[in-house]
């Protein structure tokens, strides 16, 4: 990602604090082995030549008891990837909790065309395994549950998710799914996404991608949409982000064949291989899909980013360049021109209130990177950032991929071996054509890392712990901190406004042009609110007593 920020001020330091000192103070408290491990995951972007990208420890096991913010494989699979798709009944096979906690808690929005159209996202389905199911196995119950779901709802698709104990007791959900698929004549498939797999949600993304690719993508060859047909990958429609992006694409005359996965349907996934480009937002969670689709169906993918007004404009241009169509390019420029003016106005207003303030972002697998765009647009400095479930390529850039050693935790996640589909493969652009477009500055199969886009003398920290968060706040005193719900009130109790970048604190959208405006307003509200001035009581500010008299 080439941000507006890095373009202009690569060498500027984000803070004058001695980060080395802070880092050693932080590590001091840890037991030796922990300190050694964490040292690799806490990276200081050094002043000097920005081409030296430091290596970071990432996508490795969390230290037990360190107070991580990470979730599990199931959360990544069911919560993130399958959650936002409305026309599938997702049955969570396991005890009740896993299904309950993922029930409407990720803020994916979905908009059905009518009251007849299926939307199961408001429902929570589980086999609610009881002890006898653990002892005697749960396959029978799962089968029965699928039958009941079918009888009541008559869905076109049912998917099943394994939770921790299911893997241990050996229920074969895949054979149950196959059997029921046969019996009921609808698409039924499962995900072995037990919570203990991998080291974070990230494992679940991979498993989800594999499952959708194997069981859904390619089922419907109908050609839909207009001349410029793309999929949007890794956009989960938090707070309506996808709606805003859809609005913009629509204005540009670009047809969205499918979104993986936000305001999405299984129907779209099935048809997605007919698109001509995969535009990837959250590369962390979904590049698997882009790669497999390119391999099997022949469509290229490129990294885009709709977070930030400039980034949005740039992404639109990239898409237009891919299609090499003058009319489209003109249309895109027109849209940008129309949209950008009011955005800039709001940006200036907010910037006047925000400039120079400090931000920290510790969240997700791409958000901590993307949102720096918006802060930069506000003139705010990101002094620390990191991912909850990022990999080294998310920090260091995709170019680092070959040098990453695959460890045991990752090796356990199935890698599909994908080959050209004999019938459906269609090469959209030859390598020569792609090279020609790349020569104009558009990259394919590529994304930059967070580290290279950050200023010097900043912290980049992977899988940050509660303790490190506290120390960092103490040391760097940010004006705003971005993370998730678990961190929200911990941060705010320290007197620092905290912005959730998973749920947007139930605001948003923040993507696209209108989203940028929302973000500017929210951040300037949060960093300039009166309420923080009331934290100290008058008697704490001025504790002396001018006692008129003392009572007995």
């Amino acid at each position, binding site marked *: 990602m080439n941000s507006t920020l890095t373009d202009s001020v690569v060498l500027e330091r984000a803070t004058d604090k001695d980060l080395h000192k802070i880092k050693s103070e932080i590590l001091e*408290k*840890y*037991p030796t082995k*922990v300190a050694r491990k964490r040292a690799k995951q806490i990276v200081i972007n050094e002043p000097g030549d920005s081409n030296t990208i430091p290596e970071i420890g990432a996508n490795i096991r*969390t*230290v*037990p*008891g360190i*107070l*991580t913010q990470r*979730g*599990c*494989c199931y*959360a990544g699979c069911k919560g993130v990837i399958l959650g936002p798709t409305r026309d599938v009944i997702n*049955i969570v096979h396991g*005890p*009740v*909790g*896993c299904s*309950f*906690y*993922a029930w*409407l*808690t990720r803020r994916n929005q979905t908009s059905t065309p*009518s009251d007849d159209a299926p939307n199961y996202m*408001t*429902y*929570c*389905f*589980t*086999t*609610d395994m*009881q002890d006898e199911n*653990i002892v005697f196995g749960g396959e029978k119950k*799962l089968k*029965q*549950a699928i039958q*009941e779901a079918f*009888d*009541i*709802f008559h869905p076109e698709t049912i998917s099943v998710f394994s*939770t*921790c*104990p299911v893997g241990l007791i050996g229920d074969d959900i895949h054979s149950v799914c196959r059997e029921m698929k046969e019996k009921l004549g609808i698409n039924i498939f499962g995900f072995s996404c*037990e*919570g*203990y797999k991998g080291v974070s949600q990230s494992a679940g993304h991979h498993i989800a991608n594999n499952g959708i690719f194997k069981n859904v993508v390619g089922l419907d060859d109908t050609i839909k949409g207009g001349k410029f047909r793309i999929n949007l990958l890794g956009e989960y429609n938090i707070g309506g982000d996808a709606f805003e992006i859809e609005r913009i694409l629509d204005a540009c005359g670009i047809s969205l064949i499918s979104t993986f996965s936000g305001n999405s349907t299984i129907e779209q996934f099935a048809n997605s291989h007919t698109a001509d480009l995969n535009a990837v937002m959250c590369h962390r969670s979904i590049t698997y899909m882009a790669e497999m689709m390119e391999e099997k169906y022949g469509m290229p993918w490129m990294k885009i980013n709709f977070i930030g007004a400039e980034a949005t404009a740039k992404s639109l241009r990239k898409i237009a360049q891919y299609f090499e169509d003058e009319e489209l390019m003109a249309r895109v420029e027109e849209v940008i021109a129309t949209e950008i003016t009011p955005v800039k106005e709001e940006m200036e207003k907010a910037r006047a209130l925000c400039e120079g303030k400090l931000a920290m972002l510790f969240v997700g697998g791409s958000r901590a990177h993307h949102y720096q765009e918006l802060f930069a647009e506000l003139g705010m400095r990101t002094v620390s950032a990191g991912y909850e479930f990022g990999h080294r390529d998310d920090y260091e850039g995709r170019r680092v991929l070959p040098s990453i050693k695959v460890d*045991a*935790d990752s090796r356990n996640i199935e890698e599909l071996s994908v080959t050209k589909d004999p019938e459906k493969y269609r090469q959209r652009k030859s390598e020569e054509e792609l090279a020609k477009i790349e020569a104009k500055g558009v990259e394919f199969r590529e994304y930059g890392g967070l580290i290279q886009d950050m200023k010097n003398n900043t912290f980049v920290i992977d899988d940050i*712990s*509660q*303790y490190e968060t506290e120390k960092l706040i103490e040391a760097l005193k940010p004006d705003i901190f971005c993370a998730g*719900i*678990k961190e*929200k*009130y*911990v941060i705010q*109790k*320290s*007197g620092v406004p905290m912005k959730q970048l998973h749920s947007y604190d139930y605001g948003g959208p923040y993507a696209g042009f209108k989203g940028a405006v929302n973000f500017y307003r929210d951040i300037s509200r949060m960093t300039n609110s009166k309420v923080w001035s009331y934290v100290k009581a008058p008697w704490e500010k001025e504790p002396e007593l001018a006692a008129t008299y003392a009572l007995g």
Partner: protein
Amino acid sequence: MIMLLRHTPTELADRKALMINPAKTCQPIGAMYASLGIHGCMPHSHGSQGCCSYHRSTLTRHYKEPVVAGTSSFTEGSSVFGGQSNMLQAIDNLFTIYEPDIVSVHTTCLSETIGDDLTQIVQKAHDDGKVPEGKYVIYAPTPSYVGSHVTGFSNMCKGIVSGFAEKTGEKLDQVNIIPGFVEPSDMEEIKRLSSEMGVKTVLFPDTSGILNGPQTGKYHMYPKGGTTVEEMKSTGDSMGTIALGSFASSLAAKFLDTKFKVPCDILELPIGLPATDRFIDSLRKIAGVNVPESITRERGQLVDVMTDMQQYFYGKKVALFGDPDQLISLTEFLVSLDMIPVHIVTGTPGKQFAETIQAITKDLPVPVNVKAHGDMFLLHQWIKNTPVDLLIGNTYGKYIARDEDIPFVRHGFPILDRVGHSYFPTVGYKGGLRLLEKILGALLDRQDRDAPEESFELVM
């Protein structure tokens, strides 16, 4: 308006395997909540990271407060070879980095399925010197595939007493109170009432001050509040135990009775007039005190609103869902208001639930639907078949309330979309007044909304 739960059919169908829209969640979150009610305690989830993350998130969304807890971060390896090494490492790290007085461990379906033996692992942690001098590790088994979050709370309450309670031989002039799975505000109110009665109590767990704490500009991982180690130790010497809510609190109370001969009185949660009466009367009898004027006055205020507003309550049909202890007292309260609770669902299993509800509602003029180990899908279907005037339940009820256009009062766990529950109690007489205000508000707002011009009332 587009229906949010459009696929829910009116026709009931028997389900044996599929739970839809649960009215419960799993044990560990209840255990984590109970652990947060101990002063200086770090809860620890022995399982994979997701459990801990989900529990912290849900508790945080409900309380809008920091909720921290450790996890053993199981990987595929730990799942095969057992979680001992992860837990030992976690205990070491927690004490070293976060310096709690206590680490309170609960299991998950994962570690339970593996068969990890907490007693043995904790012993090993002590043996290996991972537990610093004067610090404690307590624990409770909370397999997610048994019971519900309420069971988890109950198991951790037992974990607390089995981890701490001692008998010195010298009886203390104090009463143990186990408040049940209620709000911090409720726990505070139970303490206030006891203190107003002149009874010295040890209340455990006690999340007041912890999950409704102040904004001070400084984060405290272990805020003021919570039951102290000394208090928990002393429970074995108390004169008696009042367990509020048999589902959540009887296990620990019976443990104290069996092991230390501390007699227990197992009561319903003091929600509503009749149940609060029994709580106060029990305190009075156990402690041999007179009920002070001030409490009789609070009681009289509640009765006053009940008599004054009877016309608005009378005969109104109510559907409610939530936790069994809450529902039992709420149902009794509604019946005392001449209301008609017609559909009652808890997700928590337990056959005594339906029996208790049936006994409370036996004189109602209409048949009552009640189910333990039920779900909100069933409740919604019941409502479609017999509509109600009011819905009471946690935040998830808003989807039913909107689709069916029913006035809705939020009560129970979790409440994710409003504030107030952690600051204002629903237990005790004042809590009853709050409930009445909320119920009346919901009913009268609806009357106002639907009133035609000619019967829009100024006075009600």
